[in-house]
């Protein structure tokens, strides 16, 4: 196979060089004070639901919202801040949904995650107003599949982490300096339009996306 590499690179190097163009000016949009409004509108336009709450109130509010939806089994990351807060608030409450911890490798949890949990709760690292996107950098405390396998994804985001655009975020947070195992932009629930361009939600991932924005954070 080393021949393939050498042959391909040799052919490419033998080709005439084309000029290296500069990157022309391009300014991604900015939203100033209306950032959160834009975020909410864009996420809403792709079937995501945004609810404003506070750091102290969200676990209680979530409990109510899940009760309305009849959700009883909730996947959480006990080692993450969001998961720990949920654990503290709900364990004392006998009527709260069952918390299923994602604390073992997926191989040991596959059946539960693929077929049984009804919601997954994760934090959000940043938000992007332009496209109404959540940025997740999953880690050991909040693994990748938490936001994908359960039919409902609940994402908890501080209002202060909202950026105007991906370009702004990548530049200001220095992404080029080190990327995580997996970085995700999530904009709405899983969807398809493969059958006659008719939108259907939850084809493989979550059918619903609920974003709790902590206005005081």
């Amino acid at each position, binding site marked *: 196979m080393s021949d393939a590499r050498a042959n391909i690179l040799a052919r490419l190097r033998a080709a005439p060089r084309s000029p290296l163009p500069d990157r022309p000016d391009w300014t991604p949009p900015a939203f100033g004070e209306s950032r959160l409004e834009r975020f909410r509108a864009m996420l809403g336009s792709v079937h995501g639901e945004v609810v404003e709450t506070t750091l102290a109130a969200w676990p209680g509010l979530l409990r109510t919202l899940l009760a309305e939806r009849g959700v009883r089994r909730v996947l959480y990351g006990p080692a993450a801040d969001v998961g720990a807060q949920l654990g503290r608030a709900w364990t004392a409450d006998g009527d709260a949904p069952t918390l299923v911890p994602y604390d073992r490798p997926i191989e040991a949890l596959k059946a539960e995650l693929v077929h049984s949990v009804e919601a997954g709760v994760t934090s959000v690292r940043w938000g992007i107003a332009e496209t109404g996107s959540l940025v997740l950098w999953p880690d050991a405390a909040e693994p990748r599949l938490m936001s994908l396998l359960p039919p409902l994804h609940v994402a908890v985001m501080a209002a202060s982490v909202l950026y105007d655009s991906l370009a702004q975020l990548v530049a200001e947070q220095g992404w080029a300096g080190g990327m995580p195992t997996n970085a995700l932009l999530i904009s709405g629930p899983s969807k398809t339009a493969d059958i006659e361009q*008719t939108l259907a939600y939850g084809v493989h991932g979550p059918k619903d996306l609920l974003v709790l924005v902590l206005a005081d954070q």
Partner: protein
Amino acid sequence: MGAEPRAAVGNDFTVRAPQALNDPTLRANFRRAMDGLMSKRAAQFADKPAWDSLRARGAAAKARVLAQLPALLERLEDKCRANGITVHWAETIPEANAIVLEILQKAGARTVIKGKSMVSEEMELNHHLAAHGIQAVESDLGEYIIQLAGEAPSHIVMPCIHKNKAEIARLFAERIPGLGYTEDVDALTAAARAELRGRFAAADAGISGVNFAVAETGTLVLVENEGNGRLSTTLPPLHIALMGIEKLVESLEDLPPLLALLPRSATGQHITTYVNMITHPRRAGELDGPEEVHLVLLDSGRSRVYGDDQLRDTLRCIRCGACMNHCPVYSRVGGHTYKFVYPGPIGKILTPQLEGLDCAGDQPHASTLCNACVEVCPVKIPIADILVRLREESVRPGGGDAVKGGGARRSALETLSWRAWMLIYSRPWAGRLAAWGMTRFGNLLPERLPLLKAWTSVRTKPRFAAKSLHELAREQGYCDE
């Protein structure tokens, strides 16, 4: 399972096009889909100055890749290796298939779940794996539908766009146990979800394509709406990503403009539901993600395309499909008429270069050069210029070496006819003689005459006037001056 191998399919676009044109269901399915896609895209780019500057930025990002391609491929390889991703190079499709098979066999894999990958279609990977006892299941809903039907994709973004709801309902009722006939799209989607969930959980490996590979960080970027791409690259213990050697970006800063162009051009969405950026296999302490990630870089003719500095621009393509959505030919004949993996305008320039003008040489002619594709291309590929260039290459004396199969369409009769044409237009006596001859005898030419037949088979033969314009003018008293 899957489409019949390409070798078994009829070769000639010219033969297949009239059959497609006479299929009213197909015509209706494409018309509806293309109209929807065009209007959604137009709404995204209503702000003309914003479109112009975004597009210039995206085109420059891809032009920068081509200007530095060998060095960027090496940088990508270095970065991926450092990140723990194994990089493989394949010059040909058989080599790429052998690499994938070997990785799977080494891991003892029997079942594979696939995210959407046009390179895997190029490789006819599913057939190759099936021949070696490995079952590959497509998980993108559109790909799953056509795999059930045993067909090939008819569009690079929406593979089952040629089928309507009723056709899919019948297919599902036949092939999914326990599901009756229903045209309810939510019910059909839920049935596919239920079928595929178990497949994801049981799969020994996941295979995906790559939309952009970032050389700066060794990151593989995949865009999708369904989540099947994320599942395929996260749930199984092994992930194999397939990409053509041109699908790079130099650095992360080039990613936002291209991500702003791709989904808006493709489906008229601001952004896809998921943008999945993969930089490492599962690291110590992490609870999910594949333990092993492999990246296969496929050449298969691309480095040859790169050898010509005009044709090279073909390799800027980010596979959005806007050119086909806006093509008056594609929207009438559909994707299967092109026979090869990439249909529509981009296919008309890419396929003859990858496969050779000797077997796909009629494709550059399947265009009116109306320029619609050029106007919508988000990375400014000069498709019409390349179409004209390929037409020239297909009749170049001696073939030339710019394109595989160059000169394949050259015919003695056509060459002679053009020589005569040149003579008529460069020598006044020859022009006068030809005009006199055509006005007197032109109407006696039989419709079935070679060359003329190509025109008259689909059009009424023109009637020559009894006298030329010059003769009429002279009779009216005008003189040559």
